[in-house]
């Protein structure tokens, strides 16, 4: 009976049109991220949008009040490299939609979100632990394809996609995967591709008449790379060894790319050069193992050291706890570990909220608590990075969705009787 009541309660919560109400989160310590923390602050939400944040906010009569006294209020967390909704079960082929076949290891035209499964069972447990937005990124090949930003709400694919595309994805740390035999050959292939994009832009009519030389990728891929070459779309290049990172910086200079580095195992050795070039790095704080010859100097202090040098840092998982999917929820612990290994607390929080929002062109809508932003907001029982902290409320565009996850239902079924 208790279970049935619980189910009814949960269902009613799930389908209440909470978003259409005015919600006032009061009394908590508010981390806007875009500004200093506000003790005893209020976050006012109306129709899915934040309308006021501050220490003295007038709360309209009839607003739903959430008492956050003694609690922490932050923007919804953003996990910037995931394959949520693209891969359901790693070893079940039919649930894998993250990698394109491409043509000659180039899949620039691949729009990974077109295979997104918004009914993925990973949405609910990730959301319920405070992650409201993720970047879904393609993988494999030399140029993997285009990434998108999605909110972990429920709805149709078109409803959960926040922005697409947000970046082109490529890698220069695996020659084989790029269809080449050496790093040098890989770089040559990438440069030839970019040259061909330029050539294609200049000779489109000839191309359509089949009156040009053969180019290194089909038209759709060349077309998709135009905004990259024009510096309008960021390109995230995976590189680990420090000379790979320098090669990426050179490439960015030569082609005026809006570059981001992911992986970045040895990026701390290039911190000054990354800072000078204003190139951000997406890296983690949970790997110190020289697990390949390209990652000999991988360390847990990387994020802290990059930040100190002035590099913009986004924290993503780099341990092996699968923070790109099943445990994308653990991005907050990546931040906690980054702090344990020298990163400033506010920087670490920024690195999983506003920094990724800025990188992927989302900061006018999410990543901070400011009037006018979408109400992606989390109320935590304490420090978001601590294991002891529980998530109390998660709003995505002002809507709270407490639909139980599969994991919740399994626990409910099997936990010993008498537990609460």
């Amino acid at each position, binding site marked *: 009976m208790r279970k049935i009541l619980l189910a009814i309660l949960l269902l009613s919560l799930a389908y209440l049109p909470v978003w259409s109400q005015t919600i006032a989160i009061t009394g908590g310590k508010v981390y806007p991220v875009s500004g200093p923390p506000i003790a005893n602050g209020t976050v006012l939400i109306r129709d899915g949008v934040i309308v006021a944040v501050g220490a003295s906010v007038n709360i309209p009569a009839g607003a739903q009040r959430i008492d956050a006294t003694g609690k922490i209020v932050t923007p919804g967390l953003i996990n910037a490299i995931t394959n949520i909704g693209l891969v359901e079960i790693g*070893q079940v082929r039919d649930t894998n939609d993250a990698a394109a076949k491409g043509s000659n290891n180039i899949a620039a035209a691949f729009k990974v979100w077109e295979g997104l499964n918004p009914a993925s069972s990973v949405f609910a447990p990730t959301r319920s632990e405070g992650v409201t937005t993720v970047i879904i990124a393609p993988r494999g090949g030399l140029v993997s394809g285009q990434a998108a930003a999605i909110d972990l709400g429920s709805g149709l694919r078109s409803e959960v996609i926040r922005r697409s595309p947000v970046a082109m994805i490529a890698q220069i740390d695996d020659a084989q995967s790029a269809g080449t035999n050496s790093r040098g050959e890989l770089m040559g292939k990438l440069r030839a591709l970019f040259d061909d994009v330029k050539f294609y832009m200049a000779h489109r009519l000839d191309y359509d008449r089949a009156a040009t030389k053969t180019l290194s990728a089909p038209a759709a891929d060349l077309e998709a790379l135009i905004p990259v070459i024009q510096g309008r779309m960021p390109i995230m290049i995976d590189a680990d060894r420090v000379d790979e990172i320098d090669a990426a910086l050179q490439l960015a200079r030569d082609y005026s790319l809006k570059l981001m580095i992911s992986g970045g195992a040895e990026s701390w050795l290039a911190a000054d050069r990354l800072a000078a070039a204003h190139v951000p790095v997406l890296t983690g704080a949970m790997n110190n193992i020289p697990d*390949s010859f390209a990652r000999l100097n991988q360390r847990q202090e990387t994020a802290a050291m990059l930040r100190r040098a002035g590099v913009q840092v986004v924290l993503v*998982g*780099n341990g*092996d706890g699968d923070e*790109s999917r099943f445990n994308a929820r653990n991005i907050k612990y990546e931040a906690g570990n980054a702090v344990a290994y020298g990163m400033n607390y506010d920087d670490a929080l920024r690195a999983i909220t506003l920094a990724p929002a800025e990188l992927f062109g989302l900061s006018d809508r999410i990543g901070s608590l400011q009037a006018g932003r979408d109400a992606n907001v989390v109320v935590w029982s304490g420090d978001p990075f601590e294991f002891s902290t529980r998530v109390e409320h998660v709003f995505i565009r002002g809507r709270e969705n407490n639909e139980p996850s599969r994991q919740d239902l399994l626990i409910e079924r099997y*936990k*010993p009787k008498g537990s609460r």
Partner: protein
Amino acid sequence: MRSLYRISLVACLVLAFSIQQVPLAQQSKDSGQAKPEASPSPSTPPGPGGISTPNADPFPSTYQPFPHRTTLIRNATIMTAAGPTLQNGSVLLRDGKIAAVGTNVSAPADAVVIDGTGKYVTPGIIDVHSHIGDYPAPGVDANSDGNEATNPVTANVWAEHSVWPQDPQFPRALAGGVTTMQILPGSANLIGGRSVVVKVVPARTVQGMKFPGAKYGLKMACGENPKRVYQQRGPSTRMGNVAGYRAAWIQAEAYRRKWDTWNATHKGDAPTRDLGLETLAEVLRGNILVHNHCYRADEMAQMIDIAKEFGYKIRAFHHTVEGYKIADLLKANGIGAAEWADWGGFKMEANDSVKANLAITDAVGARAMIHSDSALGAQRLNQEVAKAMYAGRAAGINITEDQAIKWLTINPAWALGLDDKIGSIEVGKNADVVLWSGNPFSVYSRAEKVWIDGSMLYDRNDKAEKWRTDFELGLVKEDN
């Protein structure tokens, strides 16, 4: 995107791409035995390896405790794993043992005194599921030595013969507070071979790391891995898996009888030795502990029945992703459950992973413990336990810190049959101790100092004393 999408290196899943078999005869005989023998001639009596000897120890431990000083850690919060946490407690380490623990321990004249104000002390962490050394870093094919994936039953292989003591993952595990680990063969096979229990200490040989007197383990594996690896030749189904285990035990039982008879009578020629059956016979005699990789609840129940059919005991299931569904069965059969905090979803049999697994397993009364199966996870087992403990509380199961500390220490010590020597802070036990910067269940706490047998082998604040493997010299920068 390789590094970011690196499939979690569930080393058990990783299968050697190219397997070079080294004939046993070519394996090093430099086992440290004090018996320099001339090349065998007909007049030379057979060595002890010539006949089947239960408890034979052909690769004996040469571990010697490192130099140590009498040490008193005081004013610390001490999680003993043997009773309630002591506030403002002291631990005295002397002659490699824990000599005193309590709130009123005075420092002997010769003792190094360490102020533990604001800090925590726990027993050394024990990781019952590691592949460090047999899947070393860097992860190159040349050193990929964890799965002898050439036959579904390879009871004849011993993990220690793959362990590279220069694996840089060892010092990193020590820095995470791990003092003892069991290194297992991978899970490609139904029966993967013998494990080895080592102390996490610098050594030139694996013998120099071996935990003196520790029993061997036998690695077995259920489910998807064996049937995937042997799809072509079989087993290719779960029923094929079960037929495979049973066939092996039938052979083992016959072998055990033949040898037990001969050992009793010494009549006629000794039966011919078979390394694989010898290991299995030792399991049947109770001298080797079974560690069984198994995810699904229904398969664990079947493995329990197989053990009963042949009269052996399963010491612990590993991974045990669905342990929470059959915790009562585990309890009734006295089987330990080694689990992750939150790994799941990487294959079908891991699809029902829940974060309350350890808490439910424990609350029902089975012996629950954390394990890593990962050289990264091994460095943060305290954090894994924190996640699992708080997930239990979120589900309404009140796991205390005093209970959770056992998942890291005394329960895995039991799984290795070493709970009389390690796993708790009690007088007389080995002085394997970790000093933490704060509560080990906080994300911000780190191991500061680690002692093994009373010797401080890790000190976060003393870079000069840092253990650097041969591999790292000249390759990995020193400030790393």
